[in-house]
């Protein structure tokens, strides 16, 4: 997979624009994005093949001269670069009421590097017709499995990313792809409607399609149990998390909490806890585009910083945070390749990528057997962070009661897990040998700036409030 033709044709323009703006600004970079996305969907009553919402094409110019940062997002950079540079500089002029109120930032290191990155994929080998046929087959099989399924959906979503980064000393290009597949069933029984989903994801379409068809029975079985699910009796329980909820915990507890743009704003308590025990000594937690292969495994970030594997928590001790270029330049630290934008139209912030706990030593069966009364909870619905005050809320789709060390068919739904982050993380007493990272997440900053993320890890045993 080579860089998209569109971006190949703009490399010269980007270099010329950097040169023009470099006459006025100490640091100039141009990021070009050409992201293609295809959604193929078959449901009981309608089907669709269309561009997905991840599709994005355009450029963002970033400028700095040691104080505030300036950015200009635009559709294209062709034409007279001198005129374009003049327009950009003029449109980004500081309003006079703000002229004495800029931050100060350290000069940005612009280490020389020229490199083209790409990752093998088979996404281009599948035509829309083949993908729609695959979805229709999955949907039909699902409908055939139970007459209680009132609607079934199979969805394939592809992401094909080309990016170009040019600064005075760097020219980087990357191309990679990712596939998300889902099967969903609306199941009605006992006058109750439940919606269940199963997913598969990876950089190879073949594997995703195979995995989806293996999950049909699981989806129907889960639906049949969930129509009988009861509300949980609120309380403090021994809990086993599946890898999806483990990932949600990593993401909400110490993912957002170590985004270093939060350090700049004094919005993260973690800033004051580097080097201290924040979790059980058996916990190790990572984030990084280079930490594993999943949806956020790019080669360089939207600031042109190469991908990292950052060990955030080692043996329960908080080691370091993750950062984008702007935050690092204000804090005087090294950026960690976590500068990400929702699209070329939006600002780069410090963002998580692939966030997970490392595997442990225990067998899952042994962990379940150790619980007298509690729940195993499954599947991320949503979560919310609170980096300043370390409250946490993670919502699981469902839980199964554990009685006398045995996982029962007593389902509860929904399950809201909440608590104080250090209490929750220090209560982790067992970690399984398993490991699964789910590349199907969406993460917002506040209530906006959505980026694709993965998270996961092993199963954890902990004590936490469920409601």
């Amino acid at each position, binding site marked *: 997979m080579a860089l998209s033709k569109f971006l190949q044709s703009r490399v010269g323009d980007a270099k010329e624009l950097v040169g023009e703006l470099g006459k006025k600004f100490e640091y100039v970079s141009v990021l070009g994005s050409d992201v293609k996305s295809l959604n193929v969907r078959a449901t009981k009553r309608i089907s669709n093949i269309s561009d997905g919402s991840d599709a994005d094409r355009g450029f963002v110019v970033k400028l700095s001269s040691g104080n505030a940062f300036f950015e200009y997002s635009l559709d294209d950079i062709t034409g007279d670069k001198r005129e374009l540079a003049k327009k950009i500089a003029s449109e980004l002029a500081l309003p006079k009421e703000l002229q004495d109120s800029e*931050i100060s930032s350290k000069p940005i290191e612009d280490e020389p590097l020229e490199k083209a990155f790409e990752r093998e994929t088979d996404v281009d080998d599948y035509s829309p017709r083949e993908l729609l046929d695959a979805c229709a087959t999955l949907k039909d099989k699902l409908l055939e499995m139970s007459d209680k399924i009132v609607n079934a959906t199979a969805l394939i979503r592809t992401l094909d990313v080309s990016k170009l980064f040019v600064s005075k000393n760097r020219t980087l290009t990357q191309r990679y792809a990712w596939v998300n597949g889902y099967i969903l069933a609306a199941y009605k029984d006992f006058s109750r409607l439940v919606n269940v989903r199963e997913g598969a994801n990876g950089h190879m379409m073949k594997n995703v399609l195979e995995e989806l068809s293996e999950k049909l029975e699981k989806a129907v079985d889960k639906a049949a149990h969930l129509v009988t699910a009861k509300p949980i009796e609120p309380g403090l329980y021994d809990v086993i998390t599946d890898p999806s909820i483990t990932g949600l915990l990593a993401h909400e507890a110490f993912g957002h909490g170590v985004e270093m743009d939060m350090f700049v704003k004094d919005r993260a308590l973690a800033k004051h806890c580097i080097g201290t025990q924040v979790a059980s000594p058996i916990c190790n937690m990572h984030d990084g585009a280079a930490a594993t292969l999943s949806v956020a495994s790019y080669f360089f970030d939207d600031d042109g910083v190469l991908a990292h594997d950052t060990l955030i928590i080692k043996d329960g001790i908080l080691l370091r945070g993750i950062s984008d270029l702007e935050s690092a330049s204000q804090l005087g630290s090294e950026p960690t390749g976590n500068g990400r934008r929702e699209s070329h139209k939006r600002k780069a912030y410090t963002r998580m990528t692939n966030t997970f706990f490392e595997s442990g030593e225990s067998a899952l069966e042994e962990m379940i057997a150790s619980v007298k009364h509690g729940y195993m909870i499954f599947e991320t619905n949503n979560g919310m962070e609170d980096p300043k005050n370390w409250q946490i809320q993670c919502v699981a789709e469902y839980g199964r009661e554990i009685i006398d060390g045995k996982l029962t068919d007593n389902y509860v739904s929904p399950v809201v897990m909440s608590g104080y982050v250090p209490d929750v993380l220090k209560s982790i007493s067992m970690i399984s040998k398993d490991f699964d990272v789910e590349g199907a997440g969406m993460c917002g900053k506040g209530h906006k700036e959505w980026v694709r993320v993965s998270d996961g890890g092993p199963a954890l045993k902990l004590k936490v409030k469920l409601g």
Partner: protein
Amino acid sequence: MQKLTLHDIIDAIKRQNGISDFKIVNTKKQSHELFFVHGKLETLRKAESESSVVTLYVAHDGKLGNSSFEATASLMADELENKLAAARENALLIFDEPYELPENLHTDGVLESNLRDMPPFEVAAKVASAVKKANETPGCDVNALEVFVVKTTTRVINSRNVDCSEVKYTVNLEAIPTANGEKQSVELFETYSFSELDEDLIACELSARLKDVAARLEAVKPAKKLTCPVIFNAYELNELFGELIFNANFASVYSHANTLEKGDALQSAPAHDKLNVTMRGKIKGCPASALFDENDGCPLADRQIIKDGKLAALYGSHRFAQYLGEEPTGNLGCIEVECGTCSEEELAKGEHLELVYMSGLQVDVYNDYIGGEIRLAYYFDGNKRVPVTSIAMSGKLSDVLNTVRLSNKQTISGAYVGPSKMLADGFNIF
């Protein structure tokens, strides 16, 4: 290189064979943005973009297929031709039930806003200055502030003589009120969206939030288990009613995602106020307003969805209305909830817990659940009001709705226009 125009797209579509109809939704956006950290300017941004979502329709085998793609302004001529050919082929693979596209519609207008004649960076600076003005609470500050001033021009064109355009001005604001005490520092997260600039209102809202964040410093977990009604504010009410009206959308019903049918009761035995909810196309000051359905150009027809606690009618797009044999309303963005008769003071007379800041209200209509983690609330025991934290609540949604009492004061929060407060009972607070 020339920028791709709407004429280029239409001409290229006309060169394709076998297309029954087409639709283009063209969006031009200008966003002026300021980002502050500790009162200092960290980043100044401008974003300008134009793109079109092009949908081709192909009638075949007694069915109708469609496929859409995004045409950005930088799309090259050969890329456009390839995308059109692919969309036509894709549409032939789709066997949906036929439906008629809207016809002969023309609108050209600007949504009412006092932002239209002000230079955008000046608006952003005025918002920042209003936030600064609010900062009068000792020991408190707004740590971070982001201001987005956005002008959006939307134009919908189709092959059936539809050409509708609107211009919309909005401001989005994200602020982090923070209080610094001797032992700890605490914060709240505030986000507002508005289409009318009112600097005094911004200052007043932020000033109230700064007092709340100061209270969070003092907040503790209640010593005893609370069993009292809960007061919701507009932010949570926007979440609650947004979930409830999902049941009434034509598309939800067509895809069997609804849990209620027309005539079903959301309130089986309302003890106080009966819910009345009307979906509207536009309401002055509500940023969810539109002049027409921004997906297909259809006119927007207001409709009462919930009447006296029962699901009275459905609403939604031209396409799904046809599938269900209903009158279309267009996709209505504003949720108007009828106010009650009690003043805010009357609602707060007895023992209660007033929500200020939740992790996120969880409303699950499938599991009949409402609840979530509470980061800050005020507990009033009948005599004294104290800030509390580190608690959660959960309840059965259908039971809770039977207990609601709504305030008589109207407010706007996002898409929600309705009572400023709601008192409801039936929660387990733990």
